[in-house]
């Protein structure tokens, strides 16, 4: 697992992101996206810095961060695999796909493999409903999942 940066470092890197984005109208989500991109998660220590810069309360920032499922409180694994679990994929057997993948990776949804290789998450629709079942690995889309593709995915995240 990667070491989490020290709080002063978080503060200064956060401040730089805020500086770049605070001129936007409604800058909080873009800032949080920027922070997550920078650190791989939204560190708790970044929240007061944002609150101070945007002149809102720490409570408000906390309320926003915890509302959106995208924002992680802890770093994810080296790879993030999102498996669609919505209806179109269900109709094409996404349940079985999920079960198989969980077994192959040895983790459940919202979990990270012990070696930090991969975090598995459910996602509700990737807009690939005519190519179900689908998944997204590190931002790249994969459709018509089958056993063969699952094996490829597992090999890739383990490599």
């Amino acid at each position, binding site marked *: 697992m990667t070491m989490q940066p020290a709080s002063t470092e978080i503060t200064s890197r956060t401040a730089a992101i805020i500086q770049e984005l605070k001129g936007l109208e409604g800058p909080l989500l873009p800032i949080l996206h920027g922070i997550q991109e920078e650190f791989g998660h939204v560190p708790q220590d970044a929240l007061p810095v944002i609150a101070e810069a945007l002149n809102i*309360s720490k409570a*408000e*920032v906390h309320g926003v961060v915890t509302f959106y499922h995208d924002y992680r409180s802890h770093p994810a694994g080296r790879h993030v695999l999102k498996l669609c679990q919505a209806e179109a994929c269900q109709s094409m057997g996404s349940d079985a796909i999920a079960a198989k993948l969980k077994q192959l990776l040895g983790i459940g949804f919202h979990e990270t493999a012990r070696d930090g290789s991969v975090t598995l998450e459910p996602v509700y629709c990737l807009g690939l409903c005519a190519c179900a079942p689908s998944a997204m690995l590190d931002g790249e889309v994969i459709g018509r999942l089958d056993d063969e593709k699952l094996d490829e995915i597992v090999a890739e995240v383990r490599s």
Partner: protein
Amino acid sequence: MGLVQEIDYGTPASTSEKQVTLTVDGFTVTVPEGTSIMRASMEAGIAIPKLCATDMVDAFGSCRLCLVEIDGRNGTPSSCTTPVAPGMVVHTQTGRLKDIRRGVMELYISDHPLDCLTCAANGDCELQTQAGVVGLRDVRYGYEGDNHVFKKNDGAENFKWMAKDESNPYFTYDPSKCIVCSRCVRACEEVQGTFALTIEGRGFESRVSPGMHQLFIDSECVSCGACVQACPTATLSEKSVIKIGQPEHSVVTTCAYCGVGCSFKAEMRGDELVRMVPYKDGKANRGHSCVKGRFAYGYSTHKERILNPMIREKVTDPWREVSWEEALTHTANEFRRIQYQYGRTSIGGITSSRCTNEETYLVQKLIRQGFRNNNVDTCARVCHSPTGYGLGQTFGTSAGTQDFDSIEKTDVVMIIGANPTDAHPVFASRMKKRLRKGAKLIVLDPRRTDIVRSAHIEAQHHLPLKPGTNVAVVTALAHVIVTEGLFDEAFIRERCDWDEFQDWASFVALPENSPEVVGQLANVDPEEIRGAARLFATGGNGAIYYGLGVTEHSQGSTTVIAIANLAMATGNVGRPGVGVNPLRGQNNVQGSCDMGSFPHELPGYRHVSGDAVRDIYESLWGVKLDDEPGLRIPNMLDAAVDGSFKGLYVQGEDILQSDPDTKHVAAGLAAMECVVVHDLFLNETANYAHVFLPGSTFLEKDGTFTNAERRINRVRKVMAPTNGLADWEVTQKLAQTMGLDWNYQHPSEIMDEIAKTTPSFASVSYDYLEKMGSVQWPCNEKAPEGTPIMHISGFVRGKGKFIRTEYVATDERTGPRFPLLLTTGRILSQYNVGAQTRRTDNVMWHSEDRLEIHPHDAENRGLRDGDWVRLTSRSGETTLRALITDKVSPGVVYTTFHHPDTQANVITTDFSDWATNCPEYKVTAVQVGASNGPSEWQLDYDEQARNSRRIATLEAAE
């Protein structure tokens, strides 16, 4: 009696003048446009079920109990969020609505504990009430499902369950009882303006979170209590209610803390105070409160409260408890002896800004009628005496021009030398609400106070001026307005003396008053001064609020005049949204000034030299009154040191701690032969007293307080005085013992005498106050309903008077020995000398006075945050711990004065306002250095204080 029940209309009132008529369940009701269906129904007496709606906050529409059906419209809209429309036909109770409501309630209760019988809110729980209202009979989901109620589900840890947060000393947060209505979150945002609460997570996991999932005490919460008041369940509960139970009767009274004068319901069980709940009909606070008024009443039953009279020969003796009769006889004899021995003017008294108008009136009457001199003064001397002088000279009255509601119409707020979020928090919340809605803000203050920048509030201009330069900077604002032609000529020509204006204008236009010159000496960017001036002159309704940062200077009166000039020049007097408004420090500063507490004025600000005025009292009181002004507090102390002043009656004030130059005060008191302290506690002044008369709290007596907006509010007795006598009774007994023919049966009779003798109070009586709730003076034949806004059609003095405001720098200067400027002030959780608040759990927020110092100044001295430092001035020295912050500018340090062991006033000098002697607390040249312990003076003081507080234990034989 019973509980004072206030109707909750569910949503705030609409201010529209247009009326709309609709039908609710067959009844016709007419309400202002913009009113919600819920409120309109309530006006018609039809209570629609609700949980998330309350009229203190805007409609939210989350609970879904208040749904209604409207003819011609689809669906079941929520009545709280749907405004009325002309001719609308609303049904609040149909089969469909019943089913939905019962269904919603079934869901609520499926995630709520069923411990109603042992719940603190039992009997005062809206969830319980509404469950009854909708006829819930069964929860078919069972209780084994997902929940926030049980610590364990089937033996397994329930991670959704959260432990009760008891970190706040006054209330608890029990997440297991939360119905996520967001009322607390919204109250914190909309009413208080702190934004300390949020909902964290989403969906079923949504929970109320203080700060970032912190304990309340660690969050941004300021403990104002708005959330507790808003909570419909036991989720947020006063600890006192948990301990005692639900109150059974209540009395509306007025808070005894700051000058906002909030109305509260004192909710009682028998003679035990259960809680103080802000009263929505209170016109000063409109249902809001702060941590002091809401919660910090515990001092009234604190174990250190003195309940028996005490006397002693010498201040080095221990106290001896005596009967009231002995104490009063002793006092009367001593005063008479001293007068016989040293002359009529050798004694005097100090009235209290914390006691009622009636009590204050009696003390000054005792002095004038009984002592036969004018040696009466009050603590307003040390805070707002320059307001009286400055506004009296320019406008003709010694008071603020507006009511608090006026802020709602203000476009530009200018705050000078005031820290409203700490010192006047409830008004600050109203101010912040207006600022969030778009009003602009200008702040003149050496410190970056919270109002300058805090969540959702940011001043357009903050002028962090050097302490002592108010006159120069305010005059520079005028310079810009005059030289740039931004003044309101029509207003000035109509309301003021044009020649005087021109004279003043030519003065302020001088180059030495320009922002460029003044900016140099005040350490302020000239462009900021120009920007602020332009904004104030052109931004719409401009209102100035100021505090002790204006008055407590050697040129305090001059600054008040400069402020009045600025308001007149911009036409900002005499209508809603504008004006000049001193923020009064103590609950009854205004009242104590009104009641003739000054040595030169009889009640109603009438000079003692006026024969006609003296006639009124002479004929009523049957004595000849002195036509020469008496001694002010500092003069009394000087005279005492000189040996000509020997006896003092001090009611409810702690001059040793609150007055400047503590050593001089101590010397003066030590030189007297009979110092009588009438107070709740053995305060610092009592260390030098010979007689101690126990006082009563505001809960124990009837009377009135007059707040900063001149509002006369009733103080009502909610319990019997623990010491046996209300303060007015003590003063009356002392007067009787001294041979005066007083015979008041009730404070209302005192008010009747005030009304009879004081034109501005002519129509005031307890009966009238009962009817009106409260009134603002002047209240007389000309203004039967009182006067919310003054100088509407002309200034009280006739023409508004422009007066030149020459800037004269204070004699207190920095130099190599004392390179920093100390300024002092308050903090939210503590009040004044702290005698009350230090005896409550408010100490959790502020247990010591700290010295705020800028990082640069700290670094130069090798100081770290929390270090003990020695603070030295020409007057004295003390030690306290440093707090490193950039809220103060480099070169400026700041501390509060709430704790006697710090004694900030050992440091302050005896410089004072040229006109009124108001001490210059706000500017003291000091040096700060590392320290390894308390100063010698502190050690001596501590020992002396401990010795002088000894009370002789009663003999076993007695």
